[in-house]
């Protein structure tokens, strides 16, 4: 693979979200957790970016920081910049922050069971968001909430019902309605369908895609499921131990996979085409989040590791305008991983 050295463009005008060299750490009584370690991320207009990784990769912490929701203490943002629609989130006042949340950027959480207030009607919860940001009366806000419910496929009459009267899939739709009520241009979905059944998941994913097109929203979709990524995302960033180890377009990540961890994730999945082939799991355990890795965190588990992998943090290399890989093995221009090269 030819590294493309002069392709780095740091200022793209159509970027709604930009993270530069972000590092976040949790200082608890027992230990220091290095959750996010120097990541760069860009979200373009009307694009869906998949943030892929396993437990402890730092995905949730990263997106919480976009809304400045990282609990402080014990969370400490030790470096970097977060620009939402061009505004530096860290420099906003409480009032500006409040105005931004929900209006410009909104979030859907993983567990629909606990993200809704059980003692408020569904309509009121949607209207709450509307009333914070729009200058409308209570009645008007409620009417808009009903319309929002219709948009997500729930009858507007049900706005007066309480969360416990809805099933899991419907609750997630309500969450989506709340998030999109003020038409934010950035939506963050943190494993939105993990707790749902497969057929309901299909419905919710389709809904999200339709709404994304309708409202022209850009989305960050956090998931560990590469199948969902294939179905819903345009671009992908793979995280491991608080770093982005590979990022690129959907095509690049699936067809031109470069990082050994990404390859490992694909190999861990059952091959739908060949039942008899054995699963090739990644050996070892997930990295220890209390360690401040001054070298490649994946080295212990990597089948291609060599001495230099334990000596320094790998460089970020760009192989196209969009395709980035952090792996020292590529110091050798002849190196390639097995995936994609099975035929020689």
């Amino acid at each position: 693979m030819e590294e493309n050295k002069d392709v780095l463009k740091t200022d793209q005008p159509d970027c709604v979200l930009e993270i530069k060299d972000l590092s976040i750490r949790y200082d608890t009584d027992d230990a220091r957790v290095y959750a996010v370690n120097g990541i760069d991320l860009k979200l373009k207009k009307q694009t869906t970016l998949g943030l892929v990784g396993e437990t402890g990769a730092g995905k949730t912490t990263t997106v919480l920081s976009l809304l400045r929701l990282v609990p402080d203490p014990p969370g400490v943002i030790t470096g970097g910049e977060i620009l939402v629609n061009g505004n530096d989130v860290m420099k906003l006042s409480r009032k500006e922050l409040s105005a931004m949340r929900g209006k410009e950027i909104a979030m859907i959480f993983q567990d629909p069971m606990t993200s809704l207030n059980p003692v408020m009607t569904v309509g009121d919860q949607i209207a709450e968001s509307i009333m914070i940001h729009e200058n409308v009366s209570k009645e008007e806000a409620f009417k808009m909430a009903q319309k929002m419910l219709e948009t997500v496929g729930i009858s507007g009459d049900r706005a007066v019902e309480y969360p416990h009267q809805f099933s899991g899939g419907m609750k997630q739709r309500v969450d989506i309605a709340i998030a999109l009520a003020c038409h934010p241009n950035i939506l963050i979905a943190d494993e939105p369908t993990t707790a749902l059944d497969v057929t309901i998941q299909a419905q919710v994913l389709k809904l999200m895609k339709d709404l994304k097109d309708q409202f022209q929203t850009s989305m960050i979709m956090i998931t560990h499921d590469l199948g969902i990524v294939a179905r819903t995302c345009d671009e992908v960033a793979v995280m491991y131990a608080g770093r982005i180890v590979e990022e690129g377009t959907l095509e690049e990540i699936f067809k031109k996979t470069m990082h050994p961890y990404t390859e490992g994730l694909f190999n861990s999945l059952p091959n739908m085409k060949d039942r008899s082939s054995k699963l090739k799991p990644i050996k070892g355990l997930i990295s220890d989040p209390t360690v401040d890795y001054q070298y490649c965190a994946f080295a212990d588990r990597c089948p291609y590791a060599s001495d230099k992998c334990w000596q320094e943090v790998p460089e970020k290399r760009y192989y196209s305008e969009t395709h980035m890989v952090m792996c020292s093995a590529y110091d050798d221009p002849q190196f390639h991983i097995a995936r994609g090269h099975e035929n020689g």
Partner: protein
Amino acid sequence: MSKKTNAAAQPGRKTQGQLIWHQFKKNKGAVIGLIAFLAIVGLAIIALFIVDYDTQIAGMLIKDKLQKPSAAHIFGTDHLGRDVFLRVIYGAHYSLLIGFLGTGVSVLFGTLIGAVAGYFGGKLEWFIMRLVDVLMTIPTMLMATCVVAAFGISITNLILAIGISTAPHFARTARASVMTVRGNEYVEAAKAIGTNDFVIMFKHVMPNALSPIIVQATNRVATCIIAAASFSFLGLGVPSPLPEWGAMLSDAKPFMRTQPYLMIFPGLAIMITVLALNLIGDGLRDALDPKLKR
């Protein structure tokens, strides 16, 4: 090849007990409470050796009566010439005894029936919990009065009365806790290997259901101490001339205006003991709560 062993594979070997203690230590209030409590216990034990029954309990040296606190008698003396300080620390052991034994009776009786109710469910549960409901409706004061009227005033009767009247609370807690633990898959796993119900209940369920009971017990000791003091104050508890704190308060009533220290010191003793126990209880609750992130 691997130069660094995976840190997650090297656990600092700590038992659950050590983990709980470690968490408890972080709560400064709880630690202060523990120190205070241990000091009181220490003094109570010393008191049993150094206090002379004749002078300080029965009160034979009336000539020293009603002296204000001084170097010789740091808490002063009462109307029978007895040293208040010595009586206070001697009296500690009554409160502690009644508090702990009373709670012990409660815990034993209440937890047992509550656990059985929670584990087996069905008609047995219904029957036990209705019994518990009935017991709960009887006010402790009333219960104690009945017991005393029937069996006479003594420390044992006081312990029994207090114990039985607070048992229902433990029954409820135990039942709820057992029901929660019962739902865990390791209980099913025990069934799957053929373990019988009683072994499951005592080996798997009870040890894991104890946390809320321990916390409640610590709080109950404090309540029992106050109850004991109240009963003694009313003359239903520890009989005179034994220096139970509540009884001391009662004796000090006629001298309230002229020798207030006779009331203040026993009162303070009760307050500090109860406060210490409550702080310990809070610390224990926080340390045992699995939801609080460590």
